[in-house]
């Protein structure tokens, strides 16, 4: 059994079927990327995986840790928007899972890890988009999850910030041995972050194609192999009539 097994037979909103016969699994230590055009149901699939959406037919199974800690769920979510509580400071937002009595040492460690030292008492309104997303990443890591689900987490920031945040997530996830499933519509991002890429077609096309990224880490964004794989991806997407 894998760390995370998703098997969605059908997911519909009213009469429109959004997802149909989708099987996806995440292995321990793996970085999986779900690539697809806007509106193909990526967010819906990820919300199902997170247990936020239970109105579907099929099953999701998460292998719980050996300690079986029921209090902290083994899955954490980073949303497309930071979704910080505007009335809480950076530190309080990061420790949100534990409310008022959060673990200060762990929060301070995370603040340093995401590069926000000195901003513990800052309110979200004074943060830039990139800083806010760093807080959201730290908040997801606070519960010490084994699986991280990320829904287009860098799509709202500029290209330079995006590259920095990608490297940050890779570093933090590697340090902690976390597996992640990331959703994106950016081919370069998929190739840079993923060990395995699942491509979704438009409509309820399901997963059209998947490929392994056989490039060692740390990767160089300019690597020739990545460019080759990008042309493979484009070919596959063209075959699936996505582009």
């Amino acid at each position: 059994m894998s760390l995370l097994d998703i098997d969605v037979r059908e997911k519909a909103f009213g009469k429109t079927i959004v997802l149909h016969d989708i099987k996806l699994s995440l292995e321990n230590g793996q970085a999986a990327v779900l690539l697809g055009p806007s509106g193909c149901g990526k967010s819906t699939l990820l919300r199902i995986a997170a247990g936020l959406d239970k109105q579907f037919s099929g099953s999701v199974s998460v292998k719980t840790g050996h300690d079986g800690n029921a209090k902290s769920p083994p899955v954490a979510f980073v949303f497309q928007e930071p979704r910080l509580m505007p009335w809480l400071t950076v530190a309080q937002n990061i420790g949100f899972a534990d409310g008022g009595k959060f673990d200060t040492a762990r929060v301070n460690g995370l603040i340093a890890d995401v590069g926000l030292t000195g901003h513990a008492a800052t309110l979200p309104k004074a943060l830039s988009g990139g800083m806010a997303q760093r807080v959201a990443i730290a908040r997801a890591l606070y519960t010490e999850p084994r699986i991280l689900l990320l829904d287009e987490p860098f799509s709202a920031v500029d290209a330079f910030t995006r590259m920095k945040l990608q490297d940050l997530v890779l570093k933090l996830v590697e340090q902690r041995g976390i597996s992640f499933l990331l959703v994106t519509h950016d081919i370069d991002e998929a190739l840079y972050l993923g060990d395995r890429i699942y491509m979704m077609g438009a409509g309820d096309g399901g997963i059209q194609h998947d490929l392994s990224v056989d490039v060692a880490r740390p990767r160089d964004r300019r690597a020739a192999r990545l460019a080759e794989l990008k042309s493979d991806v484009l070919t596959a997407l063209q075959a699936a009539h996505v582009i």
Partner: protein
Amino acid sequence: MTLSTHEFRGEAQDKTTALRRPVGTVSGFAARIASLDLRGAIVPVGALALLELFVRMGWVSPYVLPPPSDLYTTFLYLAEGPLWTNIGASALRVLIGFAFGSLLAIVVGSIVGLWYSAERYLEPSFQALRAVPSLAWVPLLMIWFGIGETSKIVLIAKSAFFPVYLSLFSGIRNVDRKLVEVGEMYRQPLPVLVWRILIPASLPHLFTGLRYGLSLAWLSVVAAELLAASEGIGYMLSDGRELSRPDLVLIAIICLAILGKISDSLFKLIEDRCLSWRDSYSTAIGGRPA
């Protein structure tokens, strides 16, 4: 960003005053007086000056509109006697009625806001009740509670209830689903979600309702006292009418204006403290001279 520059500026000011401590106190006070924004005073002061002029010129009879100088004499006379008792009586009624009404509204508003079937049962009746003007209840309240304090306080509480209830209800219903989802992600049970997300997120709405409820509470205290009372600002008003003393009426009106303004400003102060996290247009221009 504005927050951090603000804090920085505040620190710098503290340092300079600390350095000039020996002479700083006097100049600091003078600076505070000089920095007072007096533009809001231009209209009332101008109106008073014009009024005085009109009466002095004989264009308006002092029996219709007493000049401000007469008002001042009446005020000095009242200030030695019943004025403070009347103000105190009205303020106490407003305070008690508003406290009861808004507390009840917070309880009921939370229940109806959170519990959809409670909305189905209660909301239609509330909408119908809301359509009845507050004053229509007065005869019934008098039959039930007599003409004493209870009927007045119930009337005030009833007036304060609806704006607070409505704003809290819509506040809870308008909480961003995306924020609630963050709590659901951590498997937080409903009471925790309510306490950590729904209540703080609906505070801005609630404060709007509380301030409006407070203004309605002042409105109904006057109505209640006009009908039957032996003290209070509304009593001053009816007293002035019976004695044909427009100066008494005007003093009562000025008192109401000042009291309403003071209580609203106090509330605004609390609101600004509680909601300093808001990143809205009003907080953005708050610190800047317009």
